[in-house]
Protein backbone atom coordinates (compact mmCIF):
# COMPACT_ATOMS: atom_id res chain seq x y z
CA UNK A 1 0.00 0.00 0.00
CA UNK A 2 1.37 3.34 -1.04
CA UNK A 3 0.30 6.41 0.87
CA UNK A 4 0.75 9.58 -1.13
CA UNK A 5 -0.10 12.97 0.29
CA UNK A 6 0.12 15.97 -2.00
CA UNK A 7 -0.12 19.55 -0.80
CA UNK A 8 -0.37 22.09 -3.60
CA UNK A 9 0.80 25.50 -2.58
CA UNK A 10 0.14 28.43 -4.86
CA UNK A 11 1.86 28.15 -8.23
CA UNK A 12 2.87 31.24 -10.15
CA UNK A 13 5.03 31.10 -13.26
CA UNK A 14 6.34 34.12 -15.12
CA UNK A 15 6.71 32.82 -18.65
CA UNK A 16 6.98 29.54 -20.53
CA UNK A 17 8.72 29.30 -23.89
CA UNK A 18 8.49 26.05 -25.83
CA UNK A 19 9.96 25.30 -29.25
CA UNK A 20 7.90 22.21 -29.98
CA UNK A 21 5.49 19.72 -28.47
CA UNK A 22 5.39 16.60 -30.59
CA UNK A 23 4.76 12.85 -30.78
CA UNK A 24 2.06 12.38 -28.15
CA UNK A 25 3.69 14.76 -25.66
CA UNK A 26 1.66 16.71 -23.13
CA UNK A 27 1.94 20.19 -21.65
CA UNK A 28 -0.67 20.69 -18.97
CA UNK A 29 -1.40 23.79 -16.93
CA UNK A 30 -3.92 22.12 -14.68
CA UNK A 31 -4.79 18.91 -12.88
CA UNK A 32 -5.29 15.43 -14.22
CA UNK A 33 -5.79 11.90 -12.95
CA UNK A 34 -4.56 9.55 -15.66
CA UNK A 35 -1.90 10.38 -18.24
CA UNK A 36 -0.74 7.82 -20.82
CA UNK A 37 1.18 9.30 -23.74
CA UNK A 38 2.58 6.61 -26.03
CA UNK A 39 4.65 6.90 -29.17
CA UNK A 40 6.11 4.42 -31.62
CA UNK A 41 8.87 5.79 -33.82
CA UNK A 42 10.59 3.47 -36.25
CA UNK A 43 13.35 3.87 -38.79
CA UNK A 44 14.34 0.21 -39.16
CA UNK A 45 17.16 -0.98 -41.46
CA UNK A 46 14.47 -2.26 -43.86
CA UNK A 47 13.17 1.28 -44.19
CA UNK A 48 16.24 2.23 -46.21
CA UNK A 49 15.52 0.89 -49.68
CA UNK A 50 18.28 1.16 -52.26
CA UNK A 51 17.42 0.20 -55.82
CA UNK A 52 14.73 0.85 -58.39
CA UNK A 53 11.87 2.94 -56.99
CA UNK A 54 9.09 0.49 -56.25
CA UNK A 55 5.82 2.06 -55.09
CA UNK A 56 4.44 1.07 -51.69
CA UNK A 57 1.39 -1.16 -51.43
CA UNK A 58 -1.81 0.81 -52.15
CA UNK A 59 -4.15 1.94 -49.40
CA UNK A 60 -6.79 -0.73 -50.02
CA UNK A 61 -6.51 -4.27 -51.31
CA UNK A 62 -2.83 -4.39 -50.53
CA UNK A 63 -3.06 -7.55 -48.40
Amino acid at each position, binding site marked *: *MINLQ*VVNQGMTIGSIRIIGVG*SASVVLIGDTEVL*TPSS*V*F*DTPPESLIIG*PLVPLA*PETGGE
Partner: protein
Amino acid sequence: MTARVSTVGNLKVLSINYSAILHMGDCVALTPRSEVLAVQRQVSNYLGDEGNWDSFQTFRQPIPEVLVDETVRLSIRNDSPWLAVGSMKIIGLAAAAVVQIGSNKLIDSENRTLHIRQLTRGIRPVGGTPAVVEGADD
Protein backbone atom coordinates in the same frame (compact mmCIF):
# COMPACT_ATOMS: atom_id res chain seq x y z
CA MET B 1 -10.75 15.70 -6.54
CA THR B 2 -11.33 19.42 -6.76
CA ALA B 3 -9.39 20.81 -9.66
CA ARG B 4 -7.58 24.09 -9.52
CA VAL B 5 -8.16 27.12 -11.67
CA SER B 6 -5.61 27.71 -14.44
CA THR B 7 -4.89 31.15 -15.80
CA VAL B 8 -2.58 32.18 -18.60
CA GLY B 9 -2.22 35.87 -19.27
CA ASN B 10 -0.89 35.70 -22.79
CA LEU B 11 -0.70 32.71 -25.13
CA LYS B 12 0.94 32.52 -28.53
CA VAL B 13 0.99 29.35 -30.64
CA LEU B 14 2.30 29.46 -34.19
CA SER B 15 1.20 26.10 -35.57
CA ILE B 16 -0.96 23.09 -34.67
CA ASN B 17 -1.08 20.04 -36.91
CA TYR B 18 -1.47 16.23 -37.17
CA SER B 19 -4.08 15.56 -34.46
CA ALA B 20 -2.49 17.92 -31.95
CA ILE B 21 -4.86 19.59 -29.48
CA LEU B 22 -4.81 23.00 -27.88
CA HIS B 23 -7.53 23.06 -25.27
CA MET B 24 -8.56 25.97 -23.09
CA GLY B 25 -10.84 24.99 -20.25
CA ASP B 26 -11.69 21.77 -18.45
CA CYS B 27 -12.68 18.50 -20.06
CA VAL B 28 -13.09 14.84 -19.18
CA ALA B 29 -10.85 13.02 -21.65
CA LEU B 30 -8.46 13.85 -24.48
CA THR B 31 -7.49 10.92 -26.72
CA PRO B 32 -5.66 12.15 -29.84
CA ARG B 33 -4.26 9.63 -32.31
CA SER B 34 -1.89 10.16 -35.20
CA GLU B 35 -0.31 7.70 -37.59
CA VAL B 36 2.43 8.97 -39.87
CA LEU B 37 4.04 7.23 -42.81
CA ALA B 38 6.92 9.47 -43.84
CA VAL B 39 8.34 8.50 -47.22
CA GLN B 40 11.35 10.29 -48.67
CA ARG B 41 12.40 9.48 -52.23
CA GLN B 42 15.47 10.45 -54.17
CA VAL B 43 13.21 10.73 -57.20
CA SER B 44 9.99 12.56 -56.43
CA ASN B 45 7.43 10.11 -57.79
CA TYR B 46 4.36 9.45 -55.64
CA LEU B 47 1.28 7.64 -56.94
CA GLY B 48 -1.15 9.17 -54.46
CA ASP B 49 -2.78 6.01 -53.13
CA GLU B 50 0.29 4.43 -51.58
CA GLY B 51 0.64 3.30 -47.98
CA ASN B 52 -1.24 0.33 -46.62
CA TRP B 53 -1.18 0.82 -42.85
CA ASP B 54 -1.86 -2.86 -42.09
CA SER B 55 1.24 -4.03 -43.90
CA PHE B 56 3.55 -2.29 -41.44
CA GLN B 57 4.30 -3.70 -38.01
CA THR B 58 4.70 -0.17 -36.61
CA PHE B 59 0.97 0.52 -36.98
CA ARG B 60 -0.24 -2.93 -35.88
CA GLN B 61 1.81 -3.80 -32.84
CA PRO B 62 -0.05 -3.22 -29.58
CA ILE B 63 1.45 -0.74 -27.15
CA PRO B 64 1.96 -2.41 -23.78
CA GLU B 65 -0.13 -1.06 -20.94
CA VAL B 66 1.28 -0.40 -17.54
CA LEU B 67 -0.29 -2.76 -15.02
CA VAL B 68 -1.08 -1.09 -11.72
CA ASP B 69 -1.25 -3.92 -9.20
CA GLU B 70 -0.70 -1.82 -6.10
CA THR B 71 -3.23 0.20 -4.18
CA VAL B 72 -2.34 3.83 -3.83
CA ARG B 73 -4.06 5.97 -1.25
CA LEU B 74 -3.87 9.46 -2.61
CA SER B 75 -4.89 12.57 -0.80
CA ILE B 76 -4.54 15.97 -2.41
CA ARG B 77 -4.88 19.24 -0.58
CA ASN B 78 -4.98 22.47 -2.56
CA ASP B 79 -3.91 25.27 -0.29
CA SER B 80 -4.20 27.67 -3.21
CA PRO B 81 -6.65 27.13 -6.06
CA TRP B 82 -4.54 29.05 -8.58
CA LEU B 83 -2.20 27.85 -11.28
CA ALA B 84 -1.05 31.11 -12.79
CA VAL B 85 1.19 31.55 -15.79
CA GLY B 86 2.07 35.01 -17.03
CA SER B 87 2.79 34.26 -20.67
CA MET B 88 3.28 31.20 -22.80
CA LYS B 89 4.85 30.97 -26.26
CA ILE B 90 4.89 27.76 -28.26
CA ILE B 91 6.20 27.47 -31.79
CA GLY B 92 4.63 24.17 -32.78
CA LEU B 93 2.29 21.39 -31.72
CA ALA B 94 2.36 18.19 -33.75
CA ALA B 95 1.60 14.49 -33.89
CA ALA B 96 -1.05 13.93 -31.19
CA ALA B 97 0.50 16.43 -28.79
CA VAL B 98 -1.69 18.07 -26.16
CA VAL B 99 -1.49 21.51 -24.58
CA GLN B 100 -4.27 22.24 -22.15
CA ILE B 101 -4.92 25.20 -19.92
CA GLY B 102 -7.35 23.63 -17.54
CA SER B 103 -7.98 20.31 -15.89
CA ASN B 104 -9.08 16.89 -17.08
CA LYS B 105 -9.52 13.34 -15.90
CA LEU B 106 -7.63 11.49 -18.60
CA ILE B 107 -5.18 12.04 -21.42
CA ASP B 108 -4.37 9.08 -23.66
CA SER B 109 -2.34 10.26 -26.63
CA GLU B 110 -0.81 7.96 -29.22
CA ASN B 111 1.52 8.57 -32.12
CA ARG B 112 3.03 6.07 -34.54
CA THR B 113 5.62 7.21 -37.04
CA LEU B 114 7.39 5.11 -39.65
CA HIS B 115 10.16 6.53 -41.80
CA ILE B 116 10.96 5.04 -45.19
CA ARG B 117 13.70 6.31 -47.46
CA GLN B 118 14.11 5.17 -51.03
CA LEU B 119 17.34 5.81 -52.88
CA THR B 120 18.23 4.79 -56.40
CA ARG B 121 21.89 4.25 -55.58
CA GLY B 122 24.21 4.23 -52.58
CA ILE B 123 25.85 1.93 -50.06
CA ARG B 124 23.95 0.44 -47.18
CA PRO B 125 25.71 1.36 -43.93
CA VAL B 126 27.13 -1.63 -42.01
CA GLY B 127 27.53 -2.05 -38.29
CA GLY B 128 24.58 0.09 -37.41
CA THR B 129 26.47 3.22 -36.35
CA PRO B 130 26.68 5.35 -39.50
CA ALA B 131 23.50 7.14 -40.28
CA VAL B 132 24.58 8.77 -43.54
CA VAL B 133 24.53 6.93 -46.83
CA GLU B 134 27.29 8.05 -49.15
CA GLY B 135 26.28 8.40 -52.76
CA ALA B 136 28.57 6.07 -54.69
CA ASP B 137 28.73 4.30 -57.99
CA ASP B 138 28.27 0.56 -57.82
